[in-house]
């Protein structure tokens, strides 16, 4: 469904991605783990062209593209098949919850208003916000805002959803609710890449786990292999450290 080969990205002399390969099948839930600064966010942003990769080949829905030279039109089209959930939600601040969801449907995809509204309502109900359709972002808690962002992501029924640490900006008591929503999306069979520090989420909800360190992929294997049969000392140390912190 989505395949990337040799993804490289350098920020002024700082090579952040040193050739990342990634392969995602339909229904895969890939959890991406790794220490801070290892390039997880950068990889995700390159995958949705919020940053322009220096090198890399993207195969999506059967067509192969050279990432550095992809045209704005192609990128726009690709983006209509993907969705992104940000660490800091980034809801449209001048729109209500439901408008946040319909915006991409009516404006970017030219869907009729009534159909968009219906889809948006369904998406908001799915993330547990039936009573909040007309609330503004500043009237919602962080957890509710992130659930609106997730509704916005799923409403267009994208082929793949990218999550960048969706719960890192949330108060501890709000994390569980948002993770439950993401877990239920995984169970529905949606294809997702989730960058996260929530080890237990990766363990329970991900079908595969990728571990990044210093701009490289150290491991990309099934969740079972990753957690139960981990052979790399570097990753064992990482997991031990996180478990000690919890």
């Amino acid at each position, binding site marked *: 469904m989505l395949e990337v080969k040799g993804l490289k990205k350098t920020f002024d002399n700082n090579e952040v991605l040193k050739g990342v390969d990634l392969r995602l099948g339909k229904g895969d839930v890939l959890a991406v783990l790794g220490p801070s600064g290892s390039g997880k966010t950068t990889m995700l942003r390159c995958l*949705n*062209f*919020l940053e322009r990769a220096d090198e890399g080949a993207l195969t999506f829905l059967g067509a192969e593209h050279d990432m550095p030279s992809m045209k704005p039109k192609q990128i*726009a089209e690709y*983006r*209509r098949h*993907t*969705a*992104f959930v*940000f660490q*800091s*939600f*980034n*809801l*449209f*601040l*001048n*729109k*209500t919850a439901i408008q946040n969801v319909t*915006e*991409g449907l009516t*404006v*970017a*995809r030219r869907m009729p208003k009534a159909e968009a509204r219906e889809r948006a309502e369904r998406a908001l109900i799915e993330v547990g916000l039936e009573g909040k359709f007309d609330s*503004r*972002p*500043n*009237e919602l808690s962080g957890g509710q805002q992130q659930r609106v962002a997730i509704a*916005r992501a799923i409403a*267009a029924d994208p082929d793949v959803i990218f999550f960048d640490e969706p719960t890192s900006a949330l108060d501890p008591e709000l994390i569980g609710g948002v993770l439950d929503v993401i877990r239920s999306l995984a169970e529905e069979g949606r294809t997702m890449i989730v960058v996260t520090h929530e080890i237990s989420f990766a363990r329970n909800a991900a079908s595969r786990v990728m571990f990044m360190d210093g701009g490289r992929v150290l491991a990309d294997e099934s969740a079972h292999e990753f957690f139960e049969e981990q052979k790399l000392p570097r990753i064992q140390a990482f997991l031990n450290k996180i478990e000690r912190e919890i």
Partner: protein
Amino acid sequence: MNERLINILLESFPKIFLQGILITIPLTLVSFALALVIAMICAMIQVANVKWLKPFVRFYIWIVRGTPLLVQLYLIYFGLPDLGIVLPALPCAVMVFALNEGAYCAETMRAAIESVPQGQLEAGYCVGMSYMQIMRRIVLPQAFRTAFPPLSNSLISMVKDTSLAANITVMEMFMQAQRIAGRTYEHLALYAETALIYLIFCTVFTKLQRMGEKKLNTLSGGSSIRA
């Protein structure tokens, strides 16, 4: 106060006020509307980083903000005829006020647009919108809320600045007052009266600004919304 003075004030008030309604306010509103158009274009060119146009915009803003408004009026009205370009006083005033205010408002708008968090643009891209769609539907409405108070300020300043047009023979409020004062020698009374009329107009605009802000707050759900 003697009867003569009272009569002069009573007679001059409607004359000056009428000149305000007929010239000062339309001059202000038309110039300001044009200024907003200029400002919008200049701000967008800068924010969207249109490479070949940006230097021109910077140059225009630099010139306008670095020279006095009165000198600009003289330059256009008394100076351009030397090049064979003769413009009637009123259009000339509109042009100068629009160009002058446009430069200031461009900076106000640019700052307001830049104050909208980058994440708003990125979120727009990620739901598949184009740059122009995001600007129009997401960024500019938020920027407008931020820019509204300083823009209102500029508008109120402009009401008063139009009195400078008297210098290039535009028969606005202040010119009318000068004429009556010249004829009656009641300078103190007439200029005080004129000041009062400006105050009335500005008070009305201030009230409108308050109402506008309230309206925008209910529309955008709070004034200090930030991610």
